[in-house]
């Protein structure tokens, strides 16, 4: 605790005004030493295991199963078996299972939030206030759709696809699980889900939610492992659907792998979103939005606002304000309730960020990082902004997936559109202006699946999410998110 200074007969004040540590207790999480695969409602041992760790200090958390081809086949077989009865269950009963899951996630939200921050490295305030409420809300939203599908698709007689093979990334482990499993089950499918190699624990804990909710065995199966496990799942004969969220590179490989097979595919891939700031915007509000857009979740966000397009007239003023705001970001222990920017998820990701930042400097952009002390153990990267960036720079074209912002300028709305669309990606975009008509004018011209006006990185179960161009196809969320898990007769 901070020392207090006595001041005569007045109340004592702290000697300095720095934050005191405010660590969230990890007692609520009871980890097993070792986890198998959750298949057919039971835990199956695997031949090989790997250690999953905490990115904040590289300490081991648990041993997790490396699912082999045979393990994946078992899981798909269990899901196929369960599909027979799950798809015939009265839809209202299916809905009630999903409502149960939503409730249990809310009830156990603290436990999940702590585990998410522990295993993934994201700040506890984000897992607590964003990931968990949204995950529970997603199940609640799709629960209600389960027995109303014919109203979403009149005269089309919607039917489930069968077993959905789902592969999710490490940036929002539980939330991505919810985005995948909730609509799949609501539509009457069963699932085999593979969480990311570095963040398997909340998915494994979700198996316990399924147990509590009495979800029939085999309806939800969780197989852990590295990329090879995902490849086995995609190649499996027994699936009727593949849903993937992750890098564009792997997405393309999956699309190739499924060529010639009549399997429904949805891909939610990378992005290089433009966050466009006009001179008439509410500047301080925009600065908050820019910070949220790129430093939220350490920038490990596919829709992150990683390219800042600023109208030339306010460039200097905005950059000044942005740098000042960046100096107040607290980087450190994800489990500390005051932390704004947590740990980088893995060594491999840290290496990639470091490499691209080096490329930014080498290509002539100007780097700024606020002074901050990074912990000695674990993986960290200070919030970074590059000014003087050209469109041809790697840091303006490639997805960095870290807390690194590239600043470019424009003069007219047309130029802003031109530059914003100058990318192979098309996932999201942001527009900051006090002029409502301009938001809609810009939104109309930006080739991106999600456009935020005077806000950024906002999500809602009712709001469809997904990309244009090489950011993938298909939507998650909203009525439109159902289509990915249905066929029509």
């Amino acid at each position, binding site marked *: 605790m901070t020392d207090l200074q006595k001041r005569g007969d007045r109340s004592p004040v702290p000697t300095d005004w720095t934050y005191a540590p405010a660590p969230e207790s990890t007692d609520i999480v009871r980890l097993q030493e070792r986890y198998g695969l959750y298949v057919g409602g039971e835990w199956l041992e695997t031949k090989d295991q790997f250690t999953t760790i905490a990115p904040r200090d590289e300490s081991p958390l648990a041993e997790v199963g490396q699912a082999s081809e045979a393990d994946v086949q078992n899981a798909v077989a269990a899901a196929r078996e369960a599909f027979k009865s799950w798809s015939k269950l009265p839809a209202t009963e299916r809905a009630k299972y999903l409502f149960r899951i939503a409730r249990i996630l809310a009830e156990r939200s603290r436990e999940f939030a702590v585990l998410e921050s522990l295993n993934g490295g994201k700040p506890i305030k984000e897992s607590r206030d964003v990931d968990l409420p949204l995950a529970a809300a997603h199940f609640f939203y799709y629960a209600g759709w389960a027995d109303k599908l014919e109203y979403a698709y009149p005269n089309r007689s919607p039917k489930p696809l069968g077993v959905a093979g789902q592969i999710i990334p490490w940036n929002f482990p539980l939330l991505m699980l919810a985005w995948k499993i909730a609509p799949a089950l609501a539509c009457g499918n069963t699932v085999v889900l593979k969480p990311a190699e570095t963040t398997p624990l909340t998915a494994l804990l979700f198996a316990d939610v399924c147990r509590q909710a009495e979800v029939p065995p085999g309806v939800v199966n969780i197989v852990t492992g590295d990329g090879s496990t995902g490849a086995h799942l995609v190649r499996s004969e027994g699936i009727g659907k593949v849903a993937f969220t992750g890098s564009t590179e792997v997405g393309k*490989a999956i699309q190739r792998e499924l060529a010639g097979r009549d399997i429904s595919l949805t891909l939610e891939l990378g992005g290089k979103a433009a966050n466009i700031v006009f001179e008439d915007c509410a500047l301080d509000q925009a600065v908050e939005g820019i910070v949220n857009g790129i430093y939220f979740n350490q920038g490990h966000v596919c829709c992150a606002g990683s390219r800042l397009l600023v109208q030339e007239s306010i460039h200097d003023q905005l950059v000044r304000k942005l740098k000042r705001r960046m100096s107040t970001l607290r980087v450190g222990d994800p489990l500390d309730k005051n932390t704004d920017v947590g740990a980088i998820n893995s060594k491999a990701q840290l290496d990639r960020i470091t490499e691209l930042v080096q490329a930014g400097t080498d290509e002539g952009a100007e780097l700024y990082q606020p002074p901050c002390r990074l912990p000695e153990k674990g993986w960290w990267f200070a919030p970074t902004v590059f000014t003087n960036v050209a469109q041809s720079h790697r840091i303006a074209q490639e997805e960095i997936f870290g807390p690194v912002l590239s600043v470019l300028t424009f003069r007219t709305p047309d130029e802003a559109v031109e530059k914003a669309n100058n990318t192979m990606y098309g996932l999201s975009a942001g527009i900051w202006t006090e002029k409502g008509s301009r938001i809609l004018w810009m939104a109309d011209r930006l080739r991106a699946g999600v*456009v935020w006006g*005077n806000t950024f990185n906002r999500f809602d179960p*009712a*709001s*469809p999410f997904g990309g244009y*161009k090489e950011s993938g196809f298909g939507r998650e969320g909203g009525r439109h998110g159902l289509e990915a898990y249905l066929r029509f007769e």
Partner: protein
Amino acid sequence: MTGGRLAVRKTYKLFIGGAFPRSESGRTLELEGYNVARASRKDAREAVVAARKAFGGWSAATAYNRGQVLYRLAETMETRAGAFAAACTGRREVARAIDRVVWYAGWADKLAQVLGSANPVAGPYFNFTIPEPTGVVAIIAPTEPALDGLVARLAPAVVGGNAVIILASDDHPLAAIELAEAVATSDVPGGVVNVLTGLRSELAPVLAAHMDVNAIDVTGADGDVAALEVLAAENVKRVVRAREDRSPWEIASFMELKTVWHPIGR
């Protein structure tokens, strides 16, 4: 020769950017009694350039305008019914194709209402989702029926605001060229519809691999469709197949969905 008069025969050429060029390669194929242009890879790439150029204006046109233009296409087709009948299975197919164009024309200004939505998000935002055209679409036309099969794929793609490149049927390309002439005399802007005749085995892989093509319709593809899909993955192309005969969902398969969060405040 009929009635002692020698008929004036038509030269069947390609349709690119609103013009009727011969293949730059100078090649033709003898089909259905005519020397039909055999498009080269370069012709295919030119068609993509023309389509990309036309996409901006066509996708930005009002839905009402697109509906009218498509209806106008039905009108120009009707006056050419005789020529179409000679190039396909006959009058009945022509009637079906024309009625199909009229049906899709009426969808232009209803799509956003049926496929879009207003989304009740938990926050001070007006959140809505609207369909938008995906961009440049390559269509491998079904071989049979030569005219209506082609129209069944063309109409849903174009009405949504896409610019298309049609690979006509290998063996029955005349219907596609007749259709190009109807398109040229309607109010469809040049480059919105482009027609290539020739060997699809030669042209389809070029379009499937092209980095500025956003979607490929493989409904009429023969042979190795999987190989085309592998090529299509290089820029995450949307691979489209016909699912229903006539449906707004056939239009939807050539559309993206855009969700906009617009702030609400005093």
